[in-house]
């Protein structure tokens, strides 16, 4: 039941995309997002789409997942396109009814926005499909490390993220246990009305909070016992390495970026 929830969306694999250095992947994803925002016409967006399709094909992530990742943004896409469709008032009028009207430019902008949002989500979900959450936190810590000079506690933030990720499955299991225990005492969780279900949450959340605090305290003690003292002078077991693959990926992404800029200039 609760165990069926997938943590993040990481799909383990050995594709060239999986093997990239997570830092490089993160930077290139940002580059891709910038690239999409630089694109000024449909042709340029088309290049962005091509980039997405090639990258997805290389990663071996099934296309069905690509579609699945779009589900949550359907309402956003709808709202943006409707707004653009009706509120852009320049261009030839295609259709008119009382105050509402659709123009050619409105139609084009709406399509353009949809394409941009969809590509944005597909591109960034590729990152989470091919990078484990732990790798991702490592990459963020590493990339943000210059901020240490500004006294930003980068290591501590990354450690907090790692711990949070690590404890999600544990807490899910714990919730499952507590739910069963309260069900055994007759609380209405799987039976009864909606109001009963909400009332049934209190006996679950209180024990869950109590045990989370207990776990946190135990973990803190355990870390201190092993002399954890923050990021200062700490080495890592898993070192991040950039290889020739990362160089190829960087060149490949930048070529597409160049393509988009060229199309921006050529087609007005």
């Amino acid at each position, binding site marked *: 039941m609760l165990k069926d929830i997938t943590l993040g969306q990481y799909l383990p694999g050995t594709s060239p995309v999986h093997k990239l250095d997570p830092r490089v992947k993160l930077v290139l994803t940002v580059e891709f997002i910038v690239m999409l925002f630089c694109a000024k016409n449909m042709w340029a967006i088309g290049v962005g789409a091509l980039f997405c399709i090639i990258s997805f094909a290389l990663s071996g992530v099934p296309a069905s997942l690509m579609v699945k990742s779009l589900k949550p943004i359907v309402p956003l896409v709808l709202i943006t396109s409707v707004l653009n469709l009706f509120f852009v008032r320049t261009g030839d009028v295609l259709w008119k009814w009382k105050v509402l009207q659709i123009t050619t430019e409105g139609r084009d902008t709406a399509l353009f926005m949809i394409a941009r949002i969809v590509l944005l989500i597909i591109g960034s979900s590729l990152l989470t499909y091919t990078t484990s959450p732990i790798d991702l936190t490592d990459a963020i810590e590493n990339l943000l490390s210059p901020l240490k000079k500004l006294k930003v506690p980068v290591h501590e933030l990354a450690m907090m993220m790692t711990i949070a990720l690590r404890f999600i499955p544990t807490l899910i299991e714990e919730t499952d*246990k507590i739910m069963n225990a309260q069900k*055994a*005492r*007759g*609380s209405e969780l799987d*039976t009864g009305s909606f109001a009963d279900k909400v009332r049934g949450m209190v006996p679950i959340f209180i*024990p869950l909070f109590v045990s989370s605090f207990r776990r946190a305290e135990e973990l803190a003690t355990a870390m201190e016992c092993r002399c954890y003292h923050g990021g200062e002078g700490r080495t890592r077991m898993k070192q991040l390495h950039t290889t020739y693959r990362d160089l190829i990926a960087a060149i490949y992404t930048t070529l597409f970026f160049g393509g988009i800029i060229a199309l921006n200039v050529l087609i007005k």
Partner: protein
Amino acid sequence: MSIIKTEGLTYVYGEKTPFRKVALDNVSIEINEGEMIGLIGHTGSGKSTLIQHFNGLLKPTSGKVLVDGEDFFADKKKLREVRFKVGLVFQYPEYQLFEETVEKDIAYGPKNMGLDEDEIKRRVNEAAELVGLTKEQLLKSPFELSGGQKRRAAIAGVMAMEPKALILDEPASGLDPQGRDRIFDMLKKYHTEKRNTVIVVSHSMEDIAKFADRILVMNEGKVFCFDEPPKVFGRSREIEQIGLAVPQVTRVINKLCEMGYDLGDDVYTVGYAEKQILKKLNKVQI
């Protein structure tokens, strides 16, 4: 009359996934009203999975579970009723406490049953007395109690529902010897006073041997044996082979048997062992 009965009960975890695992394999048992049952098995033998079928927390993949002769999975409304008939105390039940006071927490189950105030009060007091909680402790927050007290308060919470069958999963795990004895004494008292069915899950034969009418031994999802203690311990060597420890005194007697002193193969309490040894010694002397 049987209170809980299973017929060809099979349960599979993660059907149609790579993690598929048969947790229960064709389990057919019958537990009678008023019996004290010890359920024992290695970690992963399916004992926890089995008891979660008794009150409908898990639904069998195939086979039937009958409580009071009724197949409660057939009717969704019956599901809740069954949870009041079969009280289940999980492992580390103290983690389920949530109310402001111990009293309110014990009353949670009876309240869910829709009983009236007076009846709830009577049941809370009776359960508290059974587990040995004082009036002052009832008014405290459950989080102020000691580990053993919390455990007993949580058990009282299920006892107060006055289930026809009370099932406890490892009720003494993580407690010191004194706390363990206290829990088992309490269960014995509950059983003699109420004459209700009690099922205790454990992986320690030592604890179970002392009080169970019958012992159900599970191994790899199957019933290894389900019989009275002398008969179960008559197979002590097989039991050791499946990775369960038999009581210390049984091991001593087995060793003595190997050395040529025939003391019988059904010894599992110190008292009986003493009698057998004295008998043997007298014979030798005569």
